[in-house]
């Protein structure tokens, strides 16, 4: 019964408390190193002499996290629906806001990237459109969460919504990338990492890891708040503030 001990909010609360500072240290170190490496160790002049590629570090990290956290949200929702464990629902609810914020950073930096490289603030390029749609899915999830008062129903309903969203997402991806099947040449965009110089790639990955640690830290903090809110009148919470 070693691991399942932590599926009870009462045990998970102190565990999360201990983990949070570790994730914060990891996040600060990784992001600092990633950005330092990105700004100082990468070649000063790139082939097309554009200095704005530094935006990529934040943009790639944030959009990865935006997508990854949506996946986590769906996962925790699914686990909650199957095992009916309250904690997994709490994790799903905690992930939503951080995921939405990460997606917001990805969207804004994507728009700025569009401005510097294509000249317009918004370009209906499939990737930008998809991250806009993912943002709508986040907003829909959070709207449903806050519209339902009873926590049990809110958790389950939003878990179903997240599942529905993730089921339709591939179809949306296909329809955005290939709106006109007649002349839809290549659906698979070549991954934009092929020609990237090693140092930039390293900086990008390290920054992304830093964003991942940051997301975990904030999600754990929010989960602790949710646990306190929902278990406010239990015995162990009352003891909590004694020490």
């Amino acid at each position, binding site marked *: 019964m070693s691991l399942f001990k932590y599926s009870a909010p009462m045990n998970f609360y102190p565990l999360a408390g201990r983990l949070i500072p570790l994730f914060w240290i990891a996040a600060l170190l990784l992001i600092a190193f990633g950005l330092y490496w990105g700004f100082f160790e990468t070649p000063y002049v790139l082939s097309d002499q554009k200095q704005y590629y530094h935006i990529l570090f*934040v943009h790639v990290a944030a959009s990865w996290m935006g997508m990854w956290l949506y996946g986590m949200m769906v996962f925790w929702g699914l686990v909650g629906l199957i095992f009916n464990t309250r904690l997994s629902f709490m994790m799903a609810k905690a992930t939503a806001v951080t995921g939405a914020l990460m997606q917001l950073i990805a969207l804004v930096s994507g728009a700025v990237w569009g401005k510097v490289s294509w000249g317009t603030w918004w370009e209906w390029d499939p990737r930008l459109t998809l991250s806009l749609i993912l943002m709508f899915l986040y907003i829909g999830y959070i709207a449903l969460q806050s519209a339902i008062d009873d926590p049990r129903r809110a958790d389950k309903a939003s878990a179903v919504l997240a599942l529905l969203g993730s089921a339709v997402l591939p179809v949306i991806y296909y329809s955005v990338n290939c709106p006109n099947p007649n002349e839809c040449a290549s659906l698979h965009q070549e991954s934009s990492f092929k020609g990237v110089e090693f140092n930039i790639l390293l900086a990008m990955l390290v920054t992304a890891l830093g964003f991942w640690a940051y997301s975990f*830290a904030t999600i754990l903090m929010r989960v602790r708040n949710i646990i306190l809110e929902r278990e406010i009148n239990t015995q162990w919470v009352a003891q909590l503030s004694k020490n």
Partner: protein
Amino acid sequence: MSISEFLAMGGYGYYVWGIMLLALVIMVFEPMSLKQQHQRLLQRIKRNNRLQQKGRKR
């Protein structure tokens, strides 16, 4: 690479540093508001405990 060159970022300074600033603001504001929420919850718990004590003493 002098400081001014670094800040200018080849003419794209506003964009690059704008994004960095936005990310920084979000990634500082979110934990702070969470910390605040945490403190408020703890106070609420303390108040609940006090109310219960008073209830039992009478």
